[in-house]
């Protein structure tokens, strides 16, 4: 499995993928954190869905990670795209047969790829955290936000908890992408369906069906990243979001193990 991890890492390290992804992550984190502090007195709000987050809230110990956690859905979408593309491309390029000749254990291929992409997601999240934390400190003075509580024990705890939740959510979205990639065997289809579902379909369903977001996988994974959401408790999001992914991953792992590689 370690050999698969190394091989996958080599593919993920290619400059066009690595630098474009990391630049996107920097852009997303920079934008969300900057807007959080720069629009602090804006009537249209400075948080997700027009939510108003004032200086007092941002001065709390968890104020340092508010900007970072608000990027969770977009970071998740980036992870979804990468996991889906890296998985489905093996079918479209026909390279899966090469992988399976060199490593016949299909579960090792799957797990090695997954761990390698998990490491990539970790790098993404760490970078996003660094950018967000740096900008938060940099813009706090401008927004009249006190940073004293951020460097307390409670502040570090909130930082670690926020990072853990965002990483869990990123992995959740990534897993969703990998499931789609294995099911659809096409990068374009799996990315399109995944992104449209998470960003559009779930939002529309949540608007027209009461409490729909409590049962939709994307909303549940996003809620994990935010440590809970409106109408969704953290344990509920973790339990049902995790359940969706476990069942999905189980089905595709079974299919991947049994399916003939005939392309």
């Amino acid at each position: 499995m370690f050999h698969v991890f190394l091989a996958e890492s080599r593919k993920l390290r290619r400059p066009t993928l690595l630098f474009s992804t990391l630049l996107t992550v920097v852009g997303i984190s920079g934008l969300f954190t900057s807007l959080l502090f720069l629009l602090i007195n804006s009537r249209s709000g400075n948080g997700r869905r027009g939510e108003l987050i004032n200086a007092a809230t941002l001065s709390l110990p968890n104020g340092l990670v508010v900007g970072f956690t608000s990027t969770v859905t977009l970071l998740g979408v980036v992870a979804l795209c990468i996991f889906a593309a890296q998985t489905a491309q093996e079918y479209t390029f026909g390279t899966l047969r090469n992988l399976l000749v060199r490593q016949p254990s299909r579960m090792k291929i799957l797990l090695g790829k997954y761990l390698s992409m998990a490491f990539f997601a970790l790098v993404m999240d760490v970078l996003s955290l660094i950018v967000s934390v740096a900008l938060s400190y940099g813009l706090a003075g401008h927004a009249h936000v006190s940073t004293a509580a951020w460097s307390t024990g409670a502040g570090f705890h909130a930082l670690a908890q926020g990072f853990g939740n965002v990483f869990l959510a990123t992995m959740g979205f990534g897993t969703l992408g990998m499931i789609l990639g294995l099911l659809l065997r096409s990068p374009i289809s799996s990315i399109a369906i995944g992104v449209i579902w998470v960003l559009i379909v779930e939002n529309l369903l949540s608007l027209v069906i009461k409490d729909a977001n409590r049962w939709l996988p994307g909303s549940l994974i996003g809620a994990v990243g935010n440590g809970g959401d409106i109408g969704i408790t953290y344990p509920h999001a973790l339990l049902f979001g995790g359940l969706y992914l476990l069942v999905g991953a189980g089905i595709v792992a079974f299919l991947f193990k049994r399916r003939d590689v005939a392309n």
Partner: protein
Amino acid sequence: MNSPAISVSDLSKVYGDRPALSHANFEVPMGTVCGFVGPNGSGKTTTIRMLLGLITPTGGTGTVLGQSIKHPEKYLPQVGAMIEGPAFYPALTGSENLKVLADLGGFPMSRVQPLLEQVGLGDRGTGKFKTYSLGMKQRLGIAAALLPQPKLLVLDEPTNGLDPSGIQEVRELIKDLANDGTTVFVSSHLLSELEMISEHLVMLRLGKVLFAGKTQDLLSAQQPVLVAKPEYAVDLGKVVAIAQNNGHEVSIIDGEAHIIGSADWAATLNRLAFEAGITLAALTSVLPTLEETFFEMTGDE
């Protein structure tokens, strides 16, 4: 005695109700070059995929390097393969693509550059795969197959897209590998390509094995043909009669009598024709090529 490099018994694969391979039986002796020939769609790639553990047979059994094909993990580390054309990551360089496979198989990276040089890509390893010509892609595929320093090399249509000198180089490469003791199982739809390098042949048509054995046995299975052309066309019937009266099968093709018979009988035919007052303008003994034998067996045009 060495066990065969490949052995299959009643190996079958059915997709829905369409049989892709039907009760195939053949062996590939260790240390030989074995050609795997059949028209497109005859089941060659399906067979190769089953041997490499990529698809599951619906019936029959097989062994590769003495291990059951149910456990490809036991023999694949000693097998190099290029299946149905080269497949690599377009955005990676040729060298990086080989390194991905070297990572995967746990092979030393120091093997990559010499392999690129061996297949004539020594100075193009830093080019992206998507910029390669078809011939270069094919060479990279062969390099990838050689990464594990295989005991058994499986090449599916390795000369596709290569120019004549490239084809010749691949032939030489296969010969060199065979001389070093590597068993080479090479498929092609062009029999003429394999006739020159294969000691053994497995011939497929419509998912069935038509012939499996020594190339020489296949050649000797077909009797040579004497082609006789009388000086005057009106004498053609007399030549046919002489041959038939002496127990030979004859067919007339383009004004010539094609007589099944060995070269030894040519002198007798010439004498009998002379005694009948016929002058033969041409009398040649033709040994059928493997291709002709194959078409004879498969009924292809």
